[in-house]
């Protein structure tokens, strides 16, 4: 009996590894038809958008859109998340800090479809004038034309919603790292006559840097794969090119949202094509996550040795 139990537990552990491998294998099997199809077949049966002549021409702009959305979200979320983490670990009175932790958990628990609904219905129309203004200001630069959509359903708004969604995870990981800053080093800085901010700059941030980096990577991984918020906020049929018009609508699209938008009405080779794009997304997010986790685990060994 003991052996059976041990065997079952080990099998469950191994099963996880098998499943992860199976995800890659099944996506590859189902996407294979699209990967190997000739350009002509893809164009006639693969439901490629106008302008795309082969699989690379289809996936390329989507990857570009995905990266733009995630990168913008990361740029917006990280400073705020680090700020909140510092607020909880070093600024807020203890009772307030506990409440903030709860509120951040609450933010993390809100389903993405609700974020999408809110982003499209509430945020987009209200933030559109701001984007319009930014676009006008940027257009003053000679040779630069920045368009902005009046609906607000642009990549900029999408990225803002994504930023709000990845805020909790970046905050949570950074907060843990900041809390672990050795008291010794903070006291050393204080005793030298450092202000609170100088203590943070001298002792807390250098200590937490790698932790914040991995927190941001985890956030990036989540933003890359997020579907519903993008699908609902961004008003786009499909991304067809490489463009930086983040305030405009109809130019950029992400892999995940593209799949969700087209999958229900697709059949045949079009499905295989979508699965091939899913495989690309899987590879990108796994790479980002593995890098983030690798940084975290290396960090754990380091702090364990201390």
């Amino acid at each position, binding site marked *: 009996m003991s052996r059976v139990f041990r065997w079952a537990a080990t099998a469950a552990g191994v099963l996880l590894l098998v499943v992860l491998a199976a995800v890659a294998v099944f996506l590859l099997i189902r996407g294979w038809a699209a990967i190997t199809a000739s350009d002509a077949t893809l164009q006639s049966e693969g439901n490629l958008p106008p302008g795309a002549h082969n699989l690379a021409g289809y996936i390329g702009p989507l990857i570009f859109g995905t990266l733009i959305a995630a990168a913008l979200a990361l740029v917006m979320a990280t400073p705020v998340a680090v700020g909140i983490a510092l607020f909880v670990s070093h600024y807020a009175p203890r009772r307030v800090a506990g409440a903030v932790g709860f509120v951040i958990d609450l933010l993390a628990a809100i389903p993405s479809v609700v974020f999408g609904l809110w982003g499209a219905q509430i945020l987009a129309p209200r933030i559109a004038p701001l984007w319009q203004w930014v676009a006008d200001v940027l257009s003053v630069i000679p040779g630069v034309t920045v368009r902005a959509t009046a609906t607000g359903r642009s990549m900029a708004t999408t990225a803002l919603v994504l930023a709000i969604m990845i805020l909790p995870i970046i905050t949570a990981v950074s907060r843990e790292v900041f809390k672990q800053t050795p008291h010794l080093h903070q006291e050393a800085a204080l005793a030298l006559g*450092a202000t609170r901010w100088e203590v943070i700059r001298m002792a807390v941030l250098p200590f937490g840097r790698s932790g914040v980096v991995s927190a941001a990577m985890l956030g990036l991984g989540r933003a890359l794969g997020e579907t519903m918020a993008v699908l609902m906020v961004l008003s786009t049929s499909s991304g067809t090119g490489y463009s930086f018009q983040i305030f405009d609508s109809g130019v950029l699209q992400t892999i995940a949202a593209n799949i969700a938008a087209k999958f229900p009405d697709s059949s045949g080779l079009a499905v295989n094509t979508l699965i091939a794009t899913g495989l690309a997304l899987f590879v990108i997010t796994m790479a980002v996550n593995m890098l983030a986790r690798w940084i975290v685990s290396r960090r754990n060994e380091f702090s364990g040795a201390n």
Partner: protein
Amino acid sequence: MAQRIDVKDLNIYYGSFLAVSDVSMSIEPRSVTALIGPSGCGKSTFLRSLNRMHEVIPGARVEGTVAMDGVDLYGPAVDPVAVRRQVGMVFQRPNPFPTMSIAENVLAGVRLNNKKISKSDAADLVERSLVGANLWKEVKDRLDRPGSSLSGGQQQRLCIARAIAVTPQVLLMDEPASALDPISTLAIEDLISELKASYTIVIVTHNMQQAARVSDRTGFFNIEGAGKPGRLVEIDDTATIFSTPRQQQTEDYISGRFG
């Protein structure tokens, strides 16, 4: 450079808990004052109230005055950050900043106030401070190595160099040798004897031989029981405390340990 400190009627609290009660003492400039007493008697808490490090803990506060040459450190216009600059501190465990080199560690405090210190001035200051901390000869060839690459005793002297680099009036040392081996301890004690020529030094120690060796005056703190506040029993010349203390408690404590 060195200043006297007059403590008058000092009560130290953690929230509503009175940790140290009613301390009055004078600390002479250019001398070493040792604070001894059993664990939990409040001597470290008292030490931390001398550079306003005590109040960093949420809810912690003090009543009474700590005057440095007549200026109350707890006066209304006084900035705690400025106080800590004038009253340096060395901790029980060596705590050089792990991400900084040896030279950067020495300059850490100076850089706060003077960002544009010239390269040659900085190099001079590093050398002066490390010489002052008896560490120069050992590290002069590896100033850009991380501070954490040094041995424990060297790290502690690096921390002393870091503290004196900002030219404070007073140096507080909270059991500076308790985490070190005997040879490093000796090096620190020698250093303390040299430093008292230019600084007012207050040292907390649980090692009475150490107090006897390095200090000019010794204060004995005691606590009556758990939950009761710590008190200063007496303070006098070190020779007097260790030979003919006025209080019975002091004699018990000292003889008990020397036994």
